[in-house]
């Protein structure tokens, strides 16, 4: 059940990817979810639908389009080249971009919902106590929605951890750069190395279970305290 050096590397890379992606997603989804939860703008509905597309799209379809976009001749690829960098296809950066897009709805939805469920009177009371909108967001909305935000972060992390299709299309299997756990697992199975596959799979299973446990612990339980 010991992991090889390569598998440890894949595991570390996966955790780094999931961490970076989760951080970026929170930065994007907190303001976006706040806006979606409160706006009466007509564009909000279509925008939400577009952002939720990754939920229903086959990951390989999404990965394919992203690959086209990130290739040296693609729109994003040219943008990166013009900025003095390398095209993001088959790089860690490319994986981050792909994962952010792929996991976005899984974070945005719970963030949006937990902001929408906030008691409006607390926010209005804050406004009447001279708290400006940004002040209200950080001192009332975020702390009150905190359990929901944390749940969203864990879901985003877990989702990035397990993703396969997008990563396969976008990243290939470059050790230390794009070879994440799910790819490594796939490679083991391809090579009929079931022992190695098993020890990786078990670790992922354990990790996923722990994260679900954390999400459940964050859920408000009825009767513990009336908020």
């Amino acid at each position, binding site marked *: 059940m010991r992991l090889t050096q390569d598998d440890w590397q894949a595991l570390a890379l996966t955790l780094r990817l999931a961490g970076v992606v989760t951080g970026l997603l929170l930065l994007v989804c907190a303001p976006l979810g706040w806006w979606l939860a409160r706006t009466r703008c007509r564009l909000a509905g279509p925008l939400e639908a577009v952002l939720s597309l990754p939920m229903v799209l086959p990951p390989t379809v999404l990965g394919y389009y992203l690959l086209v976009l990130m290739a040296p001749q693609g729109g994003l690829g040219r943008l990166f080249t013009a900025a003095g960098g390398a095209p993001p296809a088959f790089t860690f950066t490319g994986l981050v971009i792909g994962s952010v897009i792929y996991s976005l709805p899984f974070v945005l939805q719970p963030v949006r919902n937990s902001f929408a469920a906030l*008691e409006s009177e*607390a926010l*209005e*009371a*804050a406004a*009447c*106590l001279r*708290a400006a*909108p940004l002040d209200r967001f950080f001192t009332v909305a975020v702390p009150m929605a905190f359990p929901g935000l944390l749940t969203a972060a864990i879901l985003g992390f877990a989702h990035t951890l397990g993703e396969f299709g997008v990563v396969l299309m976008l990243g290939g299997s470059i050790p230390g750069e794009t070879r994440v756990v799910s790819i490594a697992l796939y490679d083991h199975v391809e090579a009929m190395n079931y022992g190695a596959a098993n020890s990786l799979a078990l670790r992922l299973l354990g990790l996923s279970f722990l994260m679900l446990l954390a999400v459940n612990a964050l859920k408000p339980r009825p009767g513990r305290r009336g*908020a």
Partner: protein
Amino acid sequence: MSLAFSMDVRKGDFQLRAEGDWPLDGVTAIFGPSGCGKSTLLRAIAGLERSPGNHLRLNREIYQDRRHWIPPHRRAVGMVFQRAGLFPHLSVRGNLDYARRRRTPGRESGVDLGELGVTPLLSRRVGELSGGERQRIAMARALLSAPALLLMDEPLAALDEHAKTGFLSLLEQFSRTARVPILLVTHSIEEVARLADRVAVMHGGILQQPVSVAEALGHPRHGMVPPHQARVVLDGVVSGGDVSDGLVRIQTAAGALRVPGAAAQVGTRTRLRIHARDVAIGLGDVPLESALNHLPGTLTSLSDAGPGLNLLQIRCGEAEIPALITLHSVRRLGLQPGQSVTAKFKSAAISPTPQHPKPQGNSQ
């Protein structure tokens, strides 16, 4: 202090028209049935709702007109909501500090946390508070931001009977001494009678001009009380007491009254309420009887008050006292406007006894 406004809000079937330039001091109640737009008016004053075309000015500051819109956090207005709207992630002290820290520099709130019964609750968590405690803290928090006007949107409506009683007497005591003018939205006659100095009645989406609370409660024509609910509200000062009898003497605009009650300090301000149906009329010499309070006055008007009843208005001193009398008695005594009569009522029919128990820290 004044509040000038002109509002015309339409939302589907709902319509609200309100216009006025009100002087603000003491407690002004806005009275009307549920769903008539009272809360909308209050929320527009706070800046929580925005309808185009409204005009609003508090003192010399324009909050809204064609060109201006001041957002709620820059208005000198405090608000107490029906459900307190406390911050559940902060302690009671944290909630109060939230207001203190954002207070306009240089403004003093002058809040007495002890008087509001908040001091024993400071280290509690919001989730552990009862409904009445929440409202007390919401009120203290709103006052700590040192508003120029305090808005209260049905602050008692969400409380159970027990908590309501406690918070109402706290509000009553507070309103007698409050330095900040209060605009109170309510659908309860009882709350108006106990708390308000003036009341503006909302009728079919239109807000009437405010009248004194005695006027609104004594005359059914203001649309606030039906004749059998008419009553007089008398603000008075304790001028003496008779410990052996358990009575206190209270000087009011209608004359001196004797009321049962614990020995209150001379000089204590209090408010008495007497229902028109508890007032009897006497003519000439009064034979021996139990009713203690006899106020000489002049009968100013008689009006129909339903089958077999008349509502009389008797001017006693500076006050007008309504009396609900059977038509039979009116004829028997030959009562006419302009006649000198005596308004009589039992001390026991006067509410309340002028004592204001301090709220206890652990009360509901």
